[in-house]
């Protein structure tokens, strides 16, 4: 997509978003509530028209003329499952198999039910299922038409950890089959676990990349050292070390070095510590979480947005 923008009157849902998602990639779209994630899914799903900019979805230009063809090649799972609660699981899927024009719908329905572990619940009305099971039915629905691109909008919203884990496995299964998955979430652990790359959106695009790339880009590499006793002269030990850009003491016996290459700097640091007579308890490569990246990029916006 190139400079894709959607406005509702004066309100900007998202603006000037440019990025590319490769075939077979599991791509995460992160952002706070109101960041424009759901509108982005609806736009790319040819449900609503962009205000400006351009995009290609499943090989087709995102235009009004191509909207039906695009919707034929993709599948969208909205944030709420939107099932027919009076109909059984199988009847829900049968309806959508008909809408997708699935050949041999009964075999296909049996296949997707098996994929989401709901074969034995096929005859149950959806209204009697738990939230987690409804989410699984919704996932089965997006698997019906062998879509090239699947959009999942907050697929684990409101689910407990066990139900979330089951959904993760299904999403990983989609990725393993080469389906392009476009996943919106504000659960950072989910994105870190499932996505090859992530984008941070808060009306405008803040960053795109692999989670480790974003961490390195924002925070650099770090080495955390713990000693048995506090160092008498930590500046004398760390300041002149090659490859160490900065250091700070994080506790009585804990030191964090900011380095350009952890594998080169760590042995140097150990040698310097031993030479200084320190007892080294541990030396680990420190790892900023995706949450750190997210908060670094987004929290400033929230503060700015407040009156």
């Amino acid at each position, binding site marked *: 997509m190139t400079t894709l923008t959607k406005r509702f009157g004066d309100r900007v849902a998202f603006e000037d978003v440019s990025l590319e998602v490769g075939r077979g990639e599991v791509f995460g779209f992160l952002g706070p509530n109101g960041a424009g994630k759901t509108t982005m899914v609806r736009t790319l799903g040819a449900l609503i028209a962009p205000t400006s900019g351009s995009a290609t979805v499943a090989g087709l230009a995102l235009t009004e003329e191509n909207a*039906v063809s695009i919707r034929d090649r993709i599948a969208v799972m909205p944030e709420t499952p939107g099932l027919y609660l009076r109909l059984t699981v199988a009847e829900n899927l049968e309806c959508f198999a008909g*809408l997708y024009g699935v050949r041999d719908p009964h075999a296909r329905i049996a296949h997707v039910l098996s994929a989401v572990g709901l074969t034995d619940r096929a005859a149950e009305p959806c209204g009697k299922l738990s939230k987690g099971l409804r989410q699984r039915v919704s996932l089965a629905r997006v698997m019906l038409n062998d879509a090239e691109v699947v959009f999942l909008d907050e697929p684990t919203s409101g689910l407990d950890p066990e139900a979330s884990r089951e959904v993760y496995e299904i999403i990983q299964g989609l990725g393993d089959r080469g389906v392009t998955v476009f996943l919106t979430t504000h659960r950072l652990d989910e994105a870190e676990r499932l996505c090859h790359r992530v984008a941070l959106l808060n009306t405008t695009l803040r960053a795109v990349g692999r989670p480790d790339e974003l961490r390195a880009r924002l925070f650099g590499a770090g080495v955390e050292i713990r000693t048995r006793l506090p160092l008498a002269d930590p500046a004398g030990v760390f300041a002149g070390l090659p490859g160490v850009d900065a250091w700070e003491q994080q506790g009585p016996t804990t030191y964090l070095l900011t380095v350009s290459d952890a594998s080169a700097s760590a042995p140097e640091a150990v040698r310097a510590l031993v030479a200084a007579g320190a007892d080294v308890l541990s030396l680990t490569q420190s790892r900023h979480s995706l949450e750190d990246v997210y908060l670094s990029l987004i929290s400033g916006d929230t503060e700015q947005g407040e009156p």
Partner: protein
Amino acid sequence: MSVDAGRIRAIYRKELREYRRTSTIVATMMALPVGVATFPLLFVLSMPTSAAHTLQGDPLIVLLGIPALVPTTIAAYAVVGERTQGSLEPVLTTAIPGDELLLAKALAALLPSLVVSYGVFALFALITTVFAHPGVAAAVLSWQDVSVQILFTPLLAVLTIWIGIAVSTRTTDVRVAQQLAALAGLPILLVCYLVAFDVIPASIAVAVVLAVVLVVADLLGWRVVSVAFDRERLITSTR
């Protein structure tokens, strides 16, 4: 214009399954016809044979109020009902165009409407034949009146279905949609009563003109409602 029969069948079957399992729809569809048919039935049963020769107007026409009212209860639910329960968006993410979706919903609303309308008419005819004075029964159930009943029932039902669906696409509350759609069907009911009480004299010419008007309105209804079906507004707007 080409339509995909498979997609229409999918929505049609789903709608019928939902109707059957929604007790409020079933109850409304049973109660309304009883309310409409009771008055003309009592009127016919209480008439002496001598009155058959002086019968003015057509009490049978009142039964056309059934196809003018019953379909609105389900048609008005068609879009806004799905919208409020969150099931509209998943359907709109598929390749089904708006006009196909609306046609499928209209056809699904038509079937139970016809079953109820013709069913009540058949029951009315049976009770009249058995319990009314023979002269009255013959006057009320003349072939012209029965033909009007058979012809106008689907024409009126289709029109009120399009009115109901049109209201359904523009409202956000099921109850409001059903009330507005019922209100919109009242002028049709009024015309039926005016004919029944001979204010508008029933004649073949009047029947032909009304039939032509209804056929045109039925065909235009699909086009008009399809144009008014705004996918983006239905998904993003709260109004």
